[in-house]
């Protein structure tokens, strides 16, 4: 299928069908975890466009998620009955605007300076919520009501499955749009700017504009993810958007395979699910509480390190190499004359 519109639409619809069916197979808690992966993926996909494709390193995406989450929570504080789509859209817009402002500053910064500036954002922004506690709820944060499924789905439809559906829909729409963007002419310009700015500029590409564009797109994704995250946790508090969130997003896109959206899917799955799985494992081993409490974090670190050592180009890169190897091995028996004459 050469037409990107058809190709991306088909993949997203197929994924939607499979994932929705899975939410019926799994229990409510697993549905809740699926929603978590989908939400995390939205932010990771945005970061993929910025860092993986356009080459701008951001250590501050957790802070951008916070902007989305607080936009949602503040709106709901004033208007608790708002249909969910409005706070989500408001979060996308407000974070997109914030992304434009940060992007203009970022377009003047390179490498470690950009990393430092976004790091400052990640550390500093949550403190604003603490400082202006009367507005943002301080360390306690602002509560967010659990989204309830429409009555048409039946009285016993679990909230977790409904949230998973919303998160899956948002994630797949994000995937569809970003896949179009990255595979299109804009994607090529984003890569060109990352590869060689002077050559891009001489080719008529406005480097600063492309860099700001990447920041806005990436921030809008982070805003949507932050808004959904607020619904997922049921609370928006500074502790939810610390530096660790930014670093987890970065680990997800690197482990998955930098610059690839499918890599962002795999990385998000690993980063969100690994802690749950490892905790379950540690719980079943009858360890002393000291060890059991710390084992997940230690194992999590080990998993990340081993993954990077084994697959330097990320999981997606490893799968791609495997696929090529398999293709070559499958072809070989059919064309023996080629190998003997070559």
């Amino acid at each position, binding site marked *: 299928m050469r037409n990107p519109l058809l190709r991306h639409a088909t993949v997203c619809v197929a994924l939607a069908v499979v994932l929705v069916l899975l939410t019926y197979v799994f229990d409510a808690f697993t549905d809740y975890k699926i929603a978590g992966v989908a939400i995390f993926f939205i932010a990771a996909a945005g970061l993929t466009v910025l860092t993986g494709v356009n080459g701008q390193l951001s250590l501050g995406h957790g802070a951008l998620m916070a902007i989305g989450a607080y936009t949602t929570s503040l709106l709901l504080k004033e208007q608790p009955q708002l249909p969910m789509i409005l706070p989500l859209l408001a979060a996308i817009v407000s974070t997109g605007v914030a992304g434009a402002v940060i992007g203009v500053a970022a377009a003047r910064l390179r490498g470690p300076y950009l990393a430092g500036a976004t790091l400052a954002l990640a550390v500093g922004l949550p403190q604003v919520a603490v400082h202006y506690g009367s507005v943002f709820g301080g360390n306690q944060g602002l509560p967010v009501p659990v989204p309830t499924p429409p009555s048409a789905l039946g009285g016993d439809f679990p909230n977790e499955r409904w949230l998973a559906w919303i998160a899956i829909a948002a994630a797949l729409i994000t995937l569809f749009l970003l896949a179009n*963007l990255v595979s299109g002419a804009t994607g090529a310009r984003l890569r060109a700017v990352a590869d060689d700015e002077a050559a891009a*500029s001489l080719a008529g590409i406005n480097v600063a504009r492309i860099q700001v564009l990447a920041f806005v797109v990436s921030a809008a994704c982070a805003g949507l993810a932050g808004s959904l995250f607020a619904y997922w946790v049921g609370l928006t508090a500074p502790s939810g958007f610390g530096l660790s969130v930014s670093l987890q997003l970065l680990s997800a896109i690197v482990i998955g395979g930098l610059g690839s959206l499918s890599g962002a899917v795999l990385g998000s799955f690993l980063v969100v699910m690994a802690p749950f799985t490892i905790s379950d494992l540690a719980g079943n081993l009858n360890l002393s509480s000291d060890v059991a409490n710390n084992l997940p974090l230690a194992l999590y670190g080990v998993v990340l390190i081993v993954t990077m050592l084994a697959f330097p180009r990320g999981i997606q890169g490893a799968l791609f190499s495997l696929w090529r190897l398999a293709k070559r091995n499958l072809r070989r028996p059919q064309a023996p004359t080629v190998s003997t004459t070559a």
Partner: protein
Amino acid sequence: MCDVAASLPAPASTSLDVANLSVHFGGVVALDDVTLRVDQGEIVGIIGPNGAGKTTLFNAVCRLVSPSSGRITYGGRSLFDHRASDLAGLGVVRTLQGLGLWSRLTVLENVATTARPRAPFVNDLLALPSAERTRLQARDDAMRILADLGIADRASAYPSSLPHGVQKRVVIARALMMQPSLLLLDEPASGLSAGEVTELTTLLRGLRERMGIALVEHHLDMVMDVSDRVVVLSLGRVIAAGTPAQIRANPDVATAYLGEQVAHA
């Protein structure tokens, strides 16, 4: 704004005029009162020893460095009013000594990405049919240029996997995709085999009818062979200008650069 400029027809007598141009880097004088002109349909060779200011001259024309004084106009328009990224839209296209190929784009994408006009960002985001049409058109145009340069079979390769000579052709293909009316070539012959230099010479002669070409090059035989006029820079100053024959006969040039044996040849 560059798109507006691109839509304007180029004036018939489009020429690059550099007048009294000086560029200082701190206390270092890189260019000192340089004046030169490149007309449509001519190839102007710019030669000089290392550090003479040849690449700085190109950088100043392309708005990559800011001159301390002087004037640069193209087709009567001051280039100082434009950014580096506007120049391609004005028809001023420059290649880089370090090639500047985009390593994560294929050869075809390297060429097609410079196409104009461009689909708006939102069309790309939604993969609208118009964006796809623009993209396919650009690929077709790029493919044709690659075929003209004899490297169509390398279209899907990544630049780093190609021999140096092929990479240099991709650089020229990318420049031609921008439909230049003035082409600034920074050492296009460096690292090429003798056969490849001959091919390049033939190519430049073919291009001359359609555009003005300024050529910074160390390969003197090639410059003398292909250029209509030659400008010699030394320590940031123009020390000679004229036809290749005049330059060969100029004793100042021989002393500064060419060496005695050439002067006596």
